[in-house]
């Protein structure tokens, strides 16, 4: 066991993957000597050489496009996009090719690859470094979208992503890269992709979150308990595609109330899919509308405004209380 941060666990997973499988290579901007702008690949080029850990020119579409070629020709590329908001120029390659090559070729070709990208707000980063566009990737069939919220999960999910026969987008919540440490097993292990995690059990209301919003969910749950005696279940979805619909159903069937929490704008955000999943599978149990505690329907602002924009514990607690106080039929 090692006591490590989320980003430390990522470096650990990358090292293990590079050691285990010659086909694995890392490519991206500044991943080599510089070890990545967050140091996720720190020391790896030195250890494995320039042909395993490659700095590329500044061109995201080519990084992803080349990764497809690498993957279909026998390699397992782990591409780093420096910040998720800089993946937009690669969206075409992800949607039109990465996600489709297996289906288009009916299994003749496939693109087992991982795209890692730090994302999300809350660290006073410069403009356009903080977007949370998970939903635009989760919507795309053929891709898997994974977001770890703990060091343990970060390592296990990343190793699972690298072993996955299909392309996995691995979004790293940079706000919690180093915000806490936890014991993580040495050596190889995986956490299955597509299974949610019950972070905390509760009976009155469920909060669904992922990534950097998981700690916020816990704080909000704590507030609600302390101030109002509400017993809150917190679920970390871990994977937005595939989505663990059973876990969502089971929890809401039990609690009857739910809050969805994310940083992205509300309108057509991933929260809507969770609401729709509850609608599909647990409507009868629902005693109040699912509350969406999210970013506002504005661009992620410059950082002087980010505290106002980002959902925090108070807003989570507010959502929980609203769900609890809701009177069925009151609006009819």
């Amino acid at each position, binding site marked *: 066991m090692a006591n490590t941060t989320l980003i430390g666990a990522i470096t650990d997973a990358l090292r293990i993957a590079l050691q285990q499988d010659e086909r694995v*290579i890392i490519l991206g901007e500044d991943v080599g000597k510089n070890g990545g702008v967050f140091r996720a690949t720190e020391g790896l080029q030195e250890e494995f050489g320039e*042909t395993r850990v490659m700095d*590329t*020119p500044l*061109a995201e*579409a*080519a990084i*992803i*496009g*080349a*990764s*497809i*070629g*690498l*993957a*279909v*020709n*026998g*390699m397992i*590329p782990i591409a780093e996009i420096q910040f998720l908001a800089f993946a937009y*120029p690669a969206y*075409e*390659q992800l949607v*039109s*090719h990465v996600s489709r*090559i*297996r*289906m*288009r*070729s*009916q*299994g*003749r*070709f*496939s693109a087992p690859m991982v795209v890692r990208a730090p994302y999300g707000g809350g660290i006073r980063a410069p403009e356009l470094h903080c977007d949370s566009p998970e939903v635009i990737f989760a919507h795309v*069939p*053929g891709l*898997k979208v994974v977001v770890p919220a703990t060091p343990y999960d970060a390592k296990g999910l990343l190793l699972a992503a690298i072993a996955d*026969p*299909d392309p996995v987008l691995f979004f790293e919540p940079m706000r919690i890269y180093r915000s806490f440490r936890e014991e993580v097993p040495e050596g190889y292990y995986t956490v299955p992709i*597509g299974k949610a995690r019950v972070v905390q059990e509760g009976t009155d209301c469920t909060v669904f979150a992922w990534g950097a919003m998981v700690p916020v969910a816990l704080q909000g749950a704590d507030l609600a308990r302390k101030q109002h005696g509400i017993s809150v279940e917190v679920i970390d979805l871990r994977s937005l595609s*595939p*989505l663990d*619909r*059973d876990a969502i159903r089971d929890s809401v069937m039990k609690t009857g109330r739910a809050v969805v929490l994310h940083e992205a704008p509300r309108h057509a955000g991933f929260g809507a899919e969770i609401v729709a999943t509850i609608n599909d599978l647990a409507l009868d149990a629902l005693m109040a509308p699912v509350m969406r505690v999210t970013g506002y329907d504005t661009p992620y602002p410059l950082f002087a405004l980010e505290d106002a924009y980002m959902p925090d514990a108070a807003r989570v607690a507010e959502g929980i209380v609203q769900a609890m106080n809701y009177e069925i039929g009151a609006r009819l």
Partner: protein
Amino acid sequence: MSVDSIRVSQKEPQVSTDMLQRMYELMWMMRQLDRRAVALQRQGRLGTYAPLEGQEAAQIGSALALRVQDFVFPSYREHAVAYVHGMPLKRILLYWNGRYDGAMPPEGVNLFPVSVPIATQIPHAAGAALAAKLRGLDQIAVTYFGDGATSEGDFHEAMNFAAVMELPLVFFCQNNGYAISLPSRKQTKVQRIAEKATAYGMEGVTVDGNDVIAVYLAMREAVAKAASGGGPTLIEAVTYRMGSHTTADDASRYRDASEVEMWKARDPILRAENALRERGAFSEEWVTQVRKHAEEIVTEAILDMQSEPPVTLDQLFDHVYRDMPKELAIQKQEALSRQAKGESVRG
């Protein structure tokens, strides 16, 4: 750099008569396929189709210079490249009938499926070439694209990657003068697409794309260079698309008949015929035989295509992921039961 010189093959008699005859046969066969495909589309027996007539020399000359292990990343008009590299004609037709079999080369044929979004296949080739280099394979990658594709960011990014990483890669541009209706002079200010290689510190070559021997030789050289660690080359084959952009297009809206006439005189098949005649290797018997053979093969492919069994829902659901997610399995069940209730799947 030989950017400004259009190579003239006649000076270099490095191609055997057998090879030239094979080139002729292939060009003839692909032209038959092409014309039949256009006709099939008109009859409603094929979907929208992108004809290649006029570009046979560029495609066949270049594809013949490849080794079987080389990895080809085509655009959507390279039916002749696909065929020469090992894709059955039937499958090529199936693709244009909206069937996945057409995007799936037989095992051992290193041919990526057609790329419809312009220029997007070019970075794939860079990746495949990088894999070949990293793995130490005796393999190069080749990507085909049009003049229009050179305006897209993906072309640029991949050219730069390949040059700076010295990848075993050939960029093969068929400059057929148009991107749908846009003439090359409105696409780019340079006279020759090959000049664009300069921006990347790459070699650029312009070749007469209607001269099958010239194309073959230029490609052979670029392949050898790439295979021996000499890095990438951009080849521009100057040619002309005789037909419309696709069967959904009407080229007469934007091209003068006189221009088309001029290019008819430069017909690649006629040019090969003349070359064969010069070598005394062209006879009426032989060509009748060639035509008959082409006719047979093409007809057989069309019949095969038409007798293909209907598609099944498996093709819709089974290869989205290797292991079907639960929710998708539920959706497949729903679709199957809908189908059982009487909705049919078009084949």
